[in-house]
């Protein structure tokens, strides 16, 4: 990674924190554990912790737990080599204990990659459900524990109806538990139920964050989501292909905003609560593709309706984040245009960087 890329990410964190660093003061001198800590979410939490330590003297000791933590050393050496970041190589499914001095936990283990869910449904269920059970069991024995934030998914609500503007935290619809495609969402629902059980029976101070869609450096371009595909196609020179007319609506929160939101909810969220995390500002996939194309090194062509289809399947997936805004004073601080530009540039530099 280049110095410019590192500086940019530090600036991103500064922008997301803004003048509200005091909200995170409870994390000073604390031991923070992040499971699944080497993915997109974990990497941005590490960037944010490094920023808080370097620029605001927080002295957070961050522990990243993941099954292949060693990969992180090659992917993010500037983080992995820090003295205030420790890597623990462990599979959350078989977790027995966590560092006893842990004060705060963000449980991010479990890939959202639906290719993995479809190919390995049993492992997906185990990682999410058994993993959450193992972690909370270990957490229940921690004497210095303040709070555990479990990362769930906006998919737990079931499909959002097109006519609904956004999904609020109480907008549950029934999922068909025998539908193969609902396995991830059902696993996340079961994991949330386990958090309720541990809070009720053992008094574990746990709450949930339901994540929607995100953008930023560390996003892998081979992932099966529209924005990743658009970025990959744009950086390759195009074309960007969209099935249908591109009216499907999504929203994207930038990585540094995501990290600040999660730490803020960890500190300020109510135990037993659940908070939507994502951008409330929707954008059609057609407009998203156009913005990405505009920022690409060579502007790619955008192709709509690439194949004839028997049905129009435009969908909308937007969070109502008024609860997080009200209780934790959160807002989007990296505008989408800037988020796209930063992400395109980050990937372009990595691609152009000599190996």
């Amino acid at each position, binding site marked *: 990674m280049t110095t410019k890329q590192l500086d940019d990410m530090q600036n991103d964190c500064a922008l997301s924190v803004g003048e509200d660093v005091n909200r995170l003061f409870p994390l000073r001198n604390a031991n923070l554990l992040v499971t699944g800590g080497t993915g997109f979410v974990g990497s941005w939490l590490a960037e944010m912790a490094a920023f808080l330590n370097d620029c605001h003297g927080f002295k957070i000791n961050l522990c990243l737990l993941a099954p292949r933590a060693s990969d992180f050393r090659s992917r993010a050496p500037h983080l992995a080599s820090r003295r205030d970041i420790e890597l623990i190589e462990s599979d959350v499914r078989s977790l027995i204990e966590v560092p006893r001095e842990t004060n705060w936990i963000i449980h991010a283990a479990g890939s959202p990659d*639906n*290719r993995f*869910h*479809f*190919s390995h449904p049993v492992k997906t269920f185990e990682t999410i459900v058994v993993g959450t059970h193992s972690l909370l069991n270990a957490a229940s024995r921690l004497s210095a524990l303040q709070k555990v934030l479990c990362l769930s998914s906006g998919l737990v609500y079931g499909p959002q109806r097109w006519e609904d503007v956004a999904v609020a935290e109480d907008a549950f619809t029934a999922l068909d538990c025998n539908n*193969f*495609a609902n396995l991830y969402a059902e696993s996340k629902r079961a994991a949330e139920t386990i958090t309720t059980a541990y809070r009720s029976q053992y008094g574990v101070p746990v709450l949930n964050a339901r994540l929607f869609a995100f953008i930023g450096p560390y996003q892998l371009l*081979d992932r*099966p989501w529209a924005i990743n*595909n658009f970025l*990959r*196609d744009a950086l*390759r*020179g*195009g*074309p960007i*292909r969209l*099935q249908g007319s591109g009216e499907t609506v999504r929203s994207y929160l930038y990585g540094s905003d995501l990290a600040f939101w999660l730490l803020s909810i960890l500190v300020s969220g109510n135990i037993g609560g659940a908070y939507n995390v994502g951008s409330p500002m929707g954008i059609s996939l057609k407009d998203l593709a156009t913005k990405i194309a505009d920022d690409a090194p060579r502007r790619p062509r955008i192709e709509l309706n*690439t*194949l*004839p*289809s*028997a*049905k129009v*399947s435009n969908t909308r997936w937007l969070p109502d984040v008024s609860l997080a805004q009200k209780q934790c004073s959160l807002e989007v601080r990296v505008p989408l245009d800037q988020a796209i530009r930063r992400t395109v540039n980050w990937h372009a530099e990595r691609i152009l960087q000599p190996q």
Partner: protein
Amino acid sequence: MPKILISDPTLRDGNHAVQHQLTLEQVAGYCAAADAAGVPIIEVGHGNGLAASSLQVGESSVTDREMLVTARKNLPHSKLGIHVMPGFATIPRDLAPAIDIGVDVIRVACHCSEADITQRHIGYVRERGRQVFGVLMMTHMLDKDRLAEEAQKMESYGAEAIMIMDSAGAFLPPDVSTRIDTLVRILHIPVGFHAHNNLGMAVANSIAALESGATILDGTARGFGAGAGNTQLELLVAVLHKMGYETGIDLYKILDAADLAEKNMIPVIPTIKSISIVSGMAGVFSGFAKHVQRISAQFKVDPRDVFFELGRRGIVAGQEDLIIEVANQLSTRRAAPVAEVV
């Protein structure tokens, strides 16, 4: 008018019918004619797809490279497609060079219950920015719900459309309707259908697929394809035009292309022979017919018995060597004393 995308595997499935001996001249001639007719996608290659030329399933008379380069040169408008089965085709050795030659549409295929094996190939094609369809073969062997799960896997891997193949020509129209209807309902990408004509149902099944929501159909000139052949392309186009569908294909020119194909490269027009009916009834891949007949003659057994036994065992493409085992066992059983048989 509703739009239907026609994909033409005459130069791929038809290769089965001539033991993979299509020549470059034949490829060039048909490509030029089909392109002129406005066929959107022309698929070429060994009958079993890219890199399948082998002793086991038959050796091609020309290399994949020669065939693709020739086709590319003669397709100024139509997209060039290939059929790719992981196991035959590897990414660096076969798929990457094919894309470099200029293949536009890659149809990554597998047995109907094995979608997991297509992830890397589909992912690679998306990385290279080409269009990729997932193809599930021998789909009569799975019920609609299991088939939908396999199709969902392919969609998650990045497939931009799903084709289901009636590789054995075993379907009747309700079999097609129930499967296509489920896939169209569950998937977010277009669904297509590839028929074989063992039971004389290829056009009827294609129309059933269409009426259940499929928007991509395969057809080959004169039905040139494995076993009893495929849906007859020029006939399908005529029927679709009569039904009011838009294919973008010029009827007269596709009729001319089919005439040319018959004259230049189809030694025997596919008909529904007795063995093909048995193959369809048994639910065994149409491409087995020539192997079954040859091996049955060698072991002096009834090829119909061989087909039904292969069907009972659920044999699929790639297991051609089991034809010998089945024929040998039938031969041995027949030769054994009655007391031992019972």
